[in-house]
């Protein structure tokens, strides 16, 4: 196995687990909170460019955008598309706390339904773009970013018009 390395799997280097990430992604508040974190000097990119599915900080918007197109990110999205494995499932598999597990499955289905209904909003929140660090710190948006925003707004209008027509 090429990807195997003992160092990577030490508990010391343990990254956020997939069931926690699933929780992160399942409410709008948590997404907003994680996407708009306060400036933290200890974290990469002052904790401003965060990929929630991969639980990873990035230097700037460009690297984050590149990452979202990459294989690792897509693999992670695939892992997140199914119900995360929890201890409840392990217990249910051996015949303990079966009812609780069935309830959790119901909850999961409801949540997925809700996510599907508000798919656009969730996507927008998760894929929101940010200005460069100078602009964030000074509070003055850079010209490029303004242009991009305008373009996006323009595209949205076009899409809406086409839908109307």
């Amino acid at each position, binding site marked *: 196995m090429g990807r*195997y390395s003992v160092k990577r*799997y*030490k*508990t010391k280097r*343990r990254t956020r*687990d*997939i069931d*926690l990430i699933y929780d992160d992604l399942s409410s709008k508040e948590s997404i907003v909170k994680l996407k708009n974190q306060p400036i933290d000097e200890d974290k990469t990119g002052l904790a401003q460019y965060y990929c929630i599915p991969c639980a990873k900080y990035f230097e700037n918007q460009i690297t984050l955008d590149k990452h979202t197109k990459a294989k690792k990110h897509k693999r992670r999205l695939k*892992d997140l598309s199914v119900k995360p*494995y929890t*201890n409840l*499932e*392990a*217990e*249910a*598999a*051996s*015949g*303990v*706390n*079966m*009812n*609780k597990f*069935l309830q959790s499955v119901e909850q999961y289905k409801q949540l997925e339904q809700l996510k599907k209904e508000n798919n656009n909003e969730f996507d927008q929140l998760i894929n929101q773009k940010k200005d460069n660090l100078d602009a964030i710190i000074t509070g003055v948006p850079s010209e490029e970013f303004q242009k991009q925003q305008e373009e996006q707004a323009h595209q949205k209008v076009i899409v809406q018009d086409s839908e109307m027509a």
Partner: protein
Amino acid sequence: MRVYQCHFCSAPVYPLHGIMFVRNDAKEFRFCRSKCHKSFKQRRNPRKLRWTKAFRKAAGKELVVDSTLTFAARRNVPVRYNRDLVATTLKAMSRIEEIRQKRERAFYKNRMRGNKDKDLAYDRKLIEQHPELLRMREVELRRKAERLAAKENAMEEEEEITSDDMMSEDEDMESESEAEQVKQKVLLKNKRKTRA
């Protein structure tokens, strides 16, 4: 004393056995052996590994939804000790286990039901595609006979070569094709001799 379930393979974890990992949000993960612990650290998905109970349940290999499976649960309600209650509970436990095993058996049988016909159909198809498989014994015998004949031929040839050497040294100088022809002639002669 409480018997826990392994987070990975769902095997019972008795006191003083296995290892526990506590995540930084205070969630406990118990493992029955190092195999499970290692797999957990490698972030494998138990649902995708065939040896775990989770896989067997998720893939429909075992009974999942059944009333006998719903009794064992943590209820978080303290119950005052009652001798009669304990007695009836113990009785019920063994009875439920009995019923569960019966149902499990029936489920397994039902799961394996169509297999014989399926295998038979597969074999039929295979034979249709490769009819020579049915005459395998004949083919074997024929091949054996061929092998024996080839061996005999080789022996005869060896004899010829030795006799040729004895007869004349001039022939060595001749071309290979001619030598072969001579061999064939000698072979024929030998055959005739044996027949006679």
